């Protein structure tokens, strides 16, 4: 008999029919009777003092029901970690797109016209845009009151002690990792190689734009329908901001139209609540596409230097990395990202001496947000490109170089944590084999490149779940996880079905509603299936136990001798006929499950040491095979292998789609995508000028390879898969390009122009 009946099977998503027929409803589709439409007025200046806001013209316009400014809102700031953002600016705007006022009106057109009628008098202030400008002595300071800002420990229970906003400067956070003696390591090295890499901002671009609808009841109770990945934290933050009981705030996110990290932060929610309160009617705001760029930014850009000391036989002896993150004006998840990326910056290798400084800097640009991988893809762009640079300098095979230094089971990481389930070497070997690494022939016109993958899951977070079994044997799972499109709801149904012996089609899943579903930290950090899955498994087991105990009492048999299958209880002495569970139940059986992922994220402020910095670590490898047109710089990715130890694939079909989707997003970040700034202004905030990958940009072949070590902390040994596949794409591709044409690109994106210029340097023309 097979080990499992339902998990491990590649079943289509349970909501697939609704999605292909257009019946599925997204948060953006929510409407209420008497609903008004809102618009937000945003700052056109990157840094300015607000001298005066005159809303009288807007308020007098027919059809305008409410105009909102900071005067109508609590005198507070919000923020995921550091509270550095006003919902509507009172005094100073800090980026182009900073919200200044909002209008609720009978339709979108009137609301937009009313926004234009609001007069705001600004006094422009000097601004900083790039990381060097932010660090320069005497630079304009983005947040003058930074030292007094409140820091919360909500993301993990213990982020506060090591966070270091430096008042009077633009340094939001400086994370230090110190291991061994890096100076001595370099002295004892046979070769020392120094490099510098940069990475651009890319936009999340979920096809469903950010959208929020708020209803305020006469009692003051608030319901918000919003496109967010973390309903419970959004509720907590909203309640805190408005000084309301959490029980008086309900946040609902139906399955959303993509998130990728861009929908985990209070954004439109406090604005629609403020407008709905003032207007006395429900208010909905849907961002325009250019607004999603201007107001929500994208992946955190920056620059890093990396210096490596290595012995003549290819052993890593010392590595020093400095990362400068351009954190924009709003730090959002930046402090967490800057800290955890510092941990992985030296790569998943045994290195006795490591020294990392990761600086999160404030500038007058839109604050970047969490983005699939939370900084790991950017840092690995540098580290894994640099690995090949060092290997080539030594004349060592890049695979061999990685294998010689790779972390192994039970090794200690540079911050002191002992690592388990380390399958990096196996992943690298598989990735190499998948792209024909061992069958290379001299002179062929194909380049091959590899990159290691290493990714944490955020420590110390909670998932809870309820599983109901009804009298007719059908099952309902209630989970706070918002299904962002990954198929997590289907995975939850499979887990419940497995534990209850049910057919997966008998399981319905309720997601993302703070009133109906128990607490969940949110769909981030590749944690949904692991954390949520463990909670669902426990809840289903509890429901199963309760049913069998009731049946046992009635039948006069021991519960452990009974079996639950297909909504029926089976007794050993009558294997031919099951008894419907309804015979033993009045009402339904309710099972509860809870899973708190370990790890604390508590770091020594001087060394970064931590006994368990993450809930768990994920290992993988990317292999790329490319052809390059030397004249035009155009790259064709012939095959891309994405190898992951995912522990156990609950739904192999969803796992494949997650890998393929993340790989193509990585292809976009590698070749096409860049949010381009002119000073503080985004010049390409639309899908015409911002290039997203289309079906024609996809590699000829993607090979998603899953290694099932069963070593994960999730149900049946599963690990998360949402983020790791994007981590290695850019460096693997760059390494493959260098392999075939001998050109090392150190700045993303690798546009044809950039590569062509590297391949065909134009001699400086002399001018008279």
């Amino acid at each position: 008999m097979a080990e499992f009946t339902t998990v491990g099977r590649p079943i289509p998503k349970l909501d697939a029919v609704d999605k292909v027929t257009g019946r599925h409803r997204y948060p953006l589709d929510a409407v209420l009777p008497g609903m008004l439409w809102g618009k937000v007025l945003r700052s056109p200046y990157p840094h300015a003092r607000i001298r005066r806001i005159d809303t009288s013209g807007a308020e007098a316009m027919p059809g305008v029901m409410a105009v909102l400014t900071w005067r109508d809102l609590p005198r507070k700031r919000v923020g995921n970690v550091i509270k550095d953002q006003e919902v509507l600016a009172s005094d100073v705007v800090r980026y182009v797109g900073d919200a200044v006022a909002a209008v609720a009106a009978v339709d979108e057109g009137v609301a937009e016209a009313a926004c234009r009628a609001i007069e705001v008098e600004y006094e422009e202030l000097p601004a900083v845009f790039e990381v060097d400008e932010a660090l320069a002595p005497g630079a304009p300071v983005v947040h003058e009151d930074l030292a007094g800002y409140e820091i919360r420990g909500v993301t993990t229970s213990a982020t506060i002690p090591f966070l270091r906003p430096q008042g009077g400067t633009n340094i939001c956070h400086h994370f230090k990792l110190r291991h061994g003696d890096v100076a001595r390591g370099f002295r004892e090295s046979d070769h020392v190689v120094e490099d510098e890499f940069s990475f651009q901002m890319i936009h999340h671009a979920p096809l469903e734009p950010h959208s929020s609808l708020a209803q305020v009841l006469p009692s003051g109770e608030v319901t918000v329908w919003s496109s967010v990945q973390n309903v419970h934290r959004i509720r907590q933050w909203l309640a805190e901001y408005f000084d309301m009981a959490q029980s008086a705030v309900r946040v609902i996110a139906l399955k959303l139209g993509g998130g990728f990290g861009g929908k985990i932060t209070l954004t439109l929610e406090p604005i629609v609540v403020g407008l709905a309160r003032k207007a006395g009617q429900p208010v909905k705001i849907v961002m325009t596409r250019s607004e999603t760029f201007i107001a929500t930014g994208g992946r955190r850009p920056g620059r890093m230097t990396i210096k490596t000391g290595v012995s003549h036989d290819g052993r890593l002896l010392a590595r020093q990395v400095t990362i400068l993150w351009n954190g924009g004006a709003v730090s959002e998840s930046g402090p967490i990202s800057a800290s955890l990326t510092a941990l992985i910056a030296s790569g998943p290798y045994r290195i006795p001496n490591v020294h990392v400084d990761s600086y999160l800097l404030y500038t007058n640009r839109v604050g970047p947000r969490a983005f699939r991988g939370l900084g790991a893809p950017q840092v690995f762009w540098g580290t894994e490109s640099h690995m090949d640079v060092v290997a080539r300098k030594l004349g060592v095979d890049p695979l061999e170089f990685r294998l010689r230094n790779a972390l192994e089971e039970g090794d200690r990481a540079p911050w002191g944590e002992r690592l388990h389930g380390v399958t990096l070497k196996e992943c690298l070997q598989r990735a190499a084999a998948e792209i024909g690494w061992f069958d290379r022939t001299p002179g062929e016109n194909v380049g091959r490149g590899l990159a290691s993958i290493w990714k944490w899951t955020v420590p110390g977070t909670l998932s809870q779940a309820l599983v109901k079994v009804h009298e007719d044997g059908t099952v309902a799972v209630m989970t706070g996880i918002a299904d962002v499109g990954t198929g997590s709801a289907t995975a939850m149904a499979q887990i419940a079905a497995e534990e209850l012996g049910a057919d997966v089609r008998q399981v319905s899943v309720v997601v993302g509603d703070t009133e109906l579903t128990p607490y969940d930290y949110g769909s981030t950090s590749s944690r949904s299936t692991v954390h949520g899955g463990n909670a669902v498994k426990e809840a289903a087991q509890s429901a199963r136990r309760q049913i069998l105990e009731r049946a046992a009492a009635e039948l006069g048999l021991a519960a452990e001798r009974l079996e639950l299958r297909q909504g029926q209880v089976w007794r050993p002495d009558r294997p031919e006929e099951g008894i419907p569970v309804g015979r033993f139940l009045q009402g339904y059986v309710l099972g509860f499950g809870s899973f708190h992922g370990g790890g604390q994220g508590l770091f020594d402020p001087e060394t970064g040491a931590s006994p368990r910095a993450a809930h768990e670590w994920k290992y993988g490898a990317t292999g790329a095979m490319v052809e390059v047109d030397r004249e035009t710089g155009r790259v064709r990715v012939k095959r891309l292998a994405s190898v992951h130890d995912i522990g156990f694939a609950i739904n192999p079909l969803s796992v494949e789609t997650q890998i393929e989707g993340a790989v193509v997003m990585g292809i976009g970040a590698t070749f096409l995508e860049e949010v381009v700034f002119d000073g503080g202004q985004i010049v390409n905030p639309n899908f015409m000028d911002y290039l997203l990958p289309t079906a024609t940009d996809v590699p000829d072949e993607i090979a998603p390879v899953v290694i099932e070590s069963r070593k994960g902390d999730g149900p049946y040994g599963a690990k998360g898969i949402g983020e790791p596949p994007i981590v290695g794409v850019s460096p693997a591709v760059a390494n493959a390009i260098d392999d075939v044409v001998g050109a090392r690109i150190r700045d993303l994106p690798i546009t044809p122009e950039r590569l062509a210029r590297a391949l065909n340097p134009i001699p400086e023309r002399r001018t008279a």
Partner: protein
Amino acid sequence: MRRAVSFTVNGRAVELEVEPARPLLDVVRDQLGLLGARRGCETAYCGACTVLVDGLAVRSCTFLAARAAGREITTIEGLERDGALDPLQAAFIEHGALECGYCVPGMILLARSFLTDHPTPSPAEIRRALGSNLCRCTGYLKMIKAVEAVALR
């Protein structure tokens, strides 16, 4: 200034008072309640709003409602025949060619229009055709395979 416009939606004749400068997308969503046409970029680039006008894929976010007069509009809600899914809808499910699903109605209607014109396309032609709509989740390969499977049938 609203004016009456008559057209056919998913096989049913309708007459609506529309603002002529309103995009068809707004009329389809707000006046007809057909929410399968999605609002994605308002600039005719992402294709999430794709509908068929006389069988041809059109971005309804920039197609003015007045131009629909006398034409036959098909939205994703009208693709099923006698309660059975269109082969493309079935193939998208079977191949797992969807994640969040926001782009899927547009992608399926685009493919339907393409296959009507090109009953026996090459794989490269399928890639090029699907290349005019955006998907941010799936990486496209499963969509390409789903369309290939239907084209080969």
